């Protein structure tokens, strides 16, 4: 495992940076039996990490593959910086993608795998060594892919995506197979890349991870858009401003002082109050002369929002 400060040398190559906005418009992919993606529209802004969320089978992977010209859409378009992927002259210098961890020839070394991509993209061989250094795989560069752990394969995928120093990075479930340290490493890397002005679109079903990483979220289920926008806003718009947790020796007195608010007594002696904010609870307690031992606002977490939003949508069709 590399030291975490490795993420600070991303070796920009000075390619001209164009607007890296991703625009998905009416994107649709019907297979014989299922509508994998169904009239999906959303935008992804540069300079931010956008979490692409949905239950398994929601159509996340298909959407990303449609965007990258690997799957032909039934209808609609997906553009990156205003161009379809197939129309980009040097696609790897604009867009990097990490789609699956097990995507190299088992008998080939990690370095040769990258050199083959360099050759096809017209990049110098030296880029292979630079990105291996970036992801901390330099010691395993000359080892064959079949000897790589899942985490190393994931790092090799990220290395391949970074070869062309792209403005836009698209990652499909990159946290899969990474250990906690690896996940933290990746989070730091992606946030750093976003701070450099790049567009980062990362799909995941690991909601807790996205809460730490994402600035924006796009939530889909059954191939359709459920919600999109800044993470805070999507959570807030769930209509629930949150609940207040209080600990006090005078629970009944406080409940009476709060009047119309809903007060629920927890098993551990704490009170969960809905319908008023923390400031109102504090003021009411002061006015009634009640001692408070704890007063915190509990925001609804992404997981609850996500489960609420996607409830009733069949995950697997």
């Amino acid at each position: 495992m590399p030291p975490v400060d490795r993420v600070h040398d991303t070796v920009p190559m000075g390619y001209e940076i164009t607007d890296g906005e991703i625009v998905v418009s009416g994107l649709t992919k019907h297979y014989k039996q299922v509508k994998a993606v169904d009239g999906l529209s959303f935008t992804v802004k540069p300079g931010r990490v956008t979490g692409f969320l949905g239950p398994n089978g929601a159509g996340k992977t298909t959407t990303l593959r449609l965007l990258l010209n690997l799957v032909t859409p039934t209808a609609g378009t997906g553009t990156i910086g205003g161009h379809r992927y197939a129309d980009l002259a040097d696609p790897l210098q604009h867009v990097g993608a990490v789609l699956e961890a097990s995507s190299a020839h088992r008998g080939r070394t990690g370095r040769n795998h990258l050199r083959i991509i360099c050759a096809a993209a017209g990049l110098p061989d030296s880029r292979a060594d630079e990105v291996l250094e970036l992801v901390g795989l330099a010691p395993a560069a000359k080892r064959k892919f079949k000897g790589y752990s899942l985490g190393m394969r994931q790092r090799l995928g990220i290395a391949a995506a970074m070869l062309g120093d792209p403005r836009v990075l698209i990652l499909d479930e990159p946290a899969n197979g990474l250990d906690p340290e690896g996940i933290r490493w990746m989070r730091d890397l992606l946030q750093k890349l976003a701070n450099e002005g790049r567009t980062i679109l990362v799909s995941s079903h690991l909601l807790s991870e996205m809460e730490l990483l994402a600035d924006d979220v796009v939530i889909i289920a059954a191939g359709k858009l459920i919600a999109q926008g800044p993470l805070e806003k999507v959570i807030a718009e769930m209509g629930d401003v949150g609940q207040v947790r209080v600990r006090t020796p005078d629970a009944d007195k406080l409940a009476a002082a709060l009047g119309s608010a809903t007060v629920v007594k927890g098993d551990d002696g704490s009170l969960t109050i809905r319908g008023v904010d923390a400031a109102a609870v504090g003021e009411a307690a002061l006015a009634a002369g009640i001692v408070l031992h704890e007063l915190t606002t509990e925001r609804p977490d992404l997981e609850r929002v996500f489960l609420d939003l996607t409830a009733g949508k069949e995950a697997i069709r």
Partner: protein
Amino acid sequence: MRLIRSEFLKIRTTNVWWLFAMGALLLLALAFAINALNMHFGVLNPPPEAQQGIDAEQAAQLAALKAPAALTSYMVTSGQYFGLMFVMLIGIITITNEFYHQTATSTFLATPHRTAVIMAKTVAAGIFGALLWAVTTAITIPATIIFLNAEGVEPALGDSAVLRAIGLNLVAYVLWALIGIGIGVLIRSQVGATVTAMVVYTVGTIAVAIIIQVLVNLLHWDWIEDAQWAFPSIASGLMVSGVDLPGQPHYWIGGLILLGWAAVTGLIGTLITRTRDIS
């Protein structure tokens, strides 16, 4: 150009190429020995009892093979049968590896124009075929000189017919790489494509010859005998014979048939690959 470099790098960075080259060279040694025995006992010094009971056409064929030019081309193109099979397998694997090892994703991300990728693969596999031909021929030429001198026959290496046979052998090595690419794009499964191709190439050649012989004997449809030349491995044998043997079509017809197979399989396969979903 950079695509061809990338594709050739793919062949070079796995074990497959030298395993195949070694297999081809081992079988080349075997084939040369069998051909030498065949020529020694079958054509140059046939036992007297074999002379009886052969019809006029076979006798004419034997007489034609006795010519130094025919003998030289026959020996110099030894090892072709298995050499072409390995070249075909390299062509197939060049394509099917991408799906077997799921590298098609990174290949088509680097180059969204899939036709260009297949063209580059075709060229890279063709180059591999040409290299294998060069190594094979570099071995068979001195071996042929030694063998024919020992038999008391003057090797006719400068003869235009022999040079043509060597040149046509190169064409065969390249065309079979192309046929391999064609099979690979048609049958995506690595195992399916290689096994099908090997069975058709080895057993298929004999099976076609037998079936056609039976049909000719049963139905007396003599035109069926000509149908066997449409079979790619038989066509390639015809092409590289270099001389027109009695009772056979012109050698260049075999070349056209091979080219046709490569073009048709490659074209259909490319059209399928262009719209295929990669997942």
